[in-house]
């Protein structure tokens, strides 16, 4: 039953299932590779050119976030947890989690090195779309 509902919802959402990786307009390039994106979100790479990059995550409950983590980072939730635990001792903290999609939007607009992901229809013209992803 739940599985059925999940499939229906998934199917429904997939109708507008395009989402984009966005960055502040100060971001030095217009495109980004999945590898680099993964490095940035795992905080293995902190700068692009000389710009300090600030990655933002949606809340854990967000479907988009788990999709993003599965597709881009290719890591399960538990392996991520273990990863950040390990990085914690190196003094590295996971990307800042924002409270909502609109907050994500605002942060990307306000913070110079901001990079995040949004549903396609939430994108503002003030920001750069680095990648468009399909589910």
């Amino acid at each position, binding site marked *: 039953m739940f599985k059925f509902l999940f499939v229906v919802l998934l199917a429904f959402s997939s109708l507008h299932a395009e989402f984009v990786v966005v960055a502040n307009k100060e971001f030095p390039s217009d495109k980004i590779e999945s590898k680099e994106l993964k490095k940035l979100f795992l905080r293995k790479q902190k700068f692009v050119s000389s710009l300090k990059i600030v990655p933002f995550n949606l809340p854990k409950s967000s479907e988009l976030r788990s999709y993003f983590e599965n597709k881009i980072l290719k890591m399960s939730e538990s392996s991520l947890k273990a990863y950040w635990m390990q990085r914690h001792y190196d003094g590295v903290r996971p990307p800042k989690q924002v409270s909502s999609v609109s*907050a994500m939007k605002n*942060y990307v607009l*306000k913070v110079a090195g901001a990079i995040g992901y949004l549903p396609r229809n939430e994108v503002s013209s003030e920001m750069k779309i680095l990648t468009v992803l399909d589910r």
Partner: protein
Amino acid sequence: MMDWLRSHLYAKLTIFFLFVTLLPMTIIWIIYVSEAKQQIIEENLREIRALSNQIDGSLAERMNQIKLDLNLLVRYEIFDDVLIGDSDLRIANFLNDKHEHMLYLGHFHVLNMKGEVIASTNMHAQGEEFVSLPIQKFYPLEKSKFSNKKTITFTEPIYSSFDRSEQIGFIALEYFGSNLINFSSTEEYTTTFFYNPKTSDVYGKKVSHAKVYEVEDTEGFFFTDDVIFSYQALKGKEFQGFYFFQAIDKSHIMRFYNQFSNTILFAMLFGLILVMIIGARIVRIITNPINELSTVAQKIGEDQDYSIRVSPKGNDEIAILGGTLNGLLEKVQTMIEQTQEESEERLRTLTQLIYIFNSIMHQSSQEDVLEVAREKLGEFLDAPVHIDSQKDDESFQEAISYADIHTQKKINCGYMRFENIERSDLEKQFLESIATMVGLQIERLHLMKEATSASEAKSMFISNMSHELRTPLNAILGFSQILDKKMENEKQKKMISNILTAGTHLLSLINDILDIAKIEAGKIDIHVDQITINALLDEVEVLTSKLATEKGLYFKVENDSSFTMKTDVKFLKQILVNQLSNAIKFTQEGGVTVKVSCDDSRVYFDIVDTGIGISEENLQKLFNEFTQIDNELQNQNKGTGLGLVLSRNLARELGGDLTLSSVEGEGSVAHVCVAKELI
């Protein structure tokens, strides 16, 4: 009062004790009153200072806590939302949550770098601009821009969590001045509050002293009528210009002082009572023996009782005085007893002497007198006394002699010889007196003998004579009466009548003489009968009123009472008739009145006439036997002159007397009185 104090040792000593005890107490009290007050105030100020410092410390701690709290607060990642204008109201919710759990009053504001209020716990501040971008960590108390409260504003910069070097905004805490109220206190006697003299801001739980106070220094104190104010400037920069005030009721501060003062007063009172009790005891111990001495002396003075002794206790000066007084009393008592004994001895002697004299006096013959004198004197002198007929030069003798009645020549009747001759001159005089007395007694005996025999002879003679005279007189009268009846010749009848009158007069004269003689010889016989006064007066009136009416005089009897007499009725009538006859006899005009009165034992008859009266001089002579007064009536009134004397003697026999009073020319009164009931 002062006199009483002066005259009472007790009072003097008591006052002395009181003075000695109360003086130090009073001095202590005065010192306490002058010193304690100042000390109490100073002590109190020290306490205030301590409290003030404590409050200051608490405030500073609170301020530090606030700063620390703010500093910690801004580390929350949530404040990153300043960047996105708190679009999700996450900061606002967070601040509201904080605000709800805040222990003090205040408002949080979060500002972005333009000074715009992004989030606030005060809804009026939302979206407003802060005054200016804060550059100080705090701003002292001033009116808030967003409310009418006065606030102290603390600020802390906010940095983004992902780039600590980048300040993204500020957090500001408006700390309400009214929070100071929590640091003030209101107790029963003490109120604390915060006061800024420049702005007149006052914070306190209960500030009834809301008025402008002058402060001079960082600390000090001043008084009003019933409150002591002390103040100290707060040290924290946040509260610059504020003073911590403490208002304390004077009565409270002075409570202990008053209590102690009362305690001292109470102690003084207690001490006073104690001293009075103890003092009274001691004073009594001191004064009691003196009082006792004084009482004893006074009692002796009043009662003359020298047998009283004081009982001195202990051996102090008073006891010694008491002992001395006792010694003195002992001597006085001994002397008085001696004197009494001597006095009694003298009295005994005197009594004995009188007894001796009495014994001697009672003897009726010369021999008995001498014998009794010898015997009794012997007993009295405790030495034999002899009566010698011859003088003996060898021994001590006192001659006994008396004077002869007719020749006045001394006749010796013996010598008293006393043995144990060694006698003092005084005693010799005494013995001489005794001898003289014995002589006089013998002389008296002789005189009495002579007189008695003479009187008896006279009375006997008169008695006999009267009797002898009456016998022939009776014959004369008897035959005259017979002749009077038989005579028919008027001239002869007149002569016979004269003989009868003269004879009757003579008979009454002889009867009078006989009566007097009988009385003098003690041969009168009294016959006591009962008679009422009215019956007596009636009989007397019958016998005498005729005489008065014949002379044209009135005769009155004045008697209001009615009683019965026991007396010799015959003699009483004789007295009254005699006196009435005399009264009528010497009265030419007016009349006679008999006034009767009586008391319990006697009856009084006053026979009042309006006759010629008797001169003072003649009144004396009147009671002599056979005396009549020379006057012109004398010739007309023949009398024996025996009537008055006889009447008086009879009145005396009837337990009364007869006296005369008179005013010459106006009349006389004969006062007769007799016993009411003759026994």
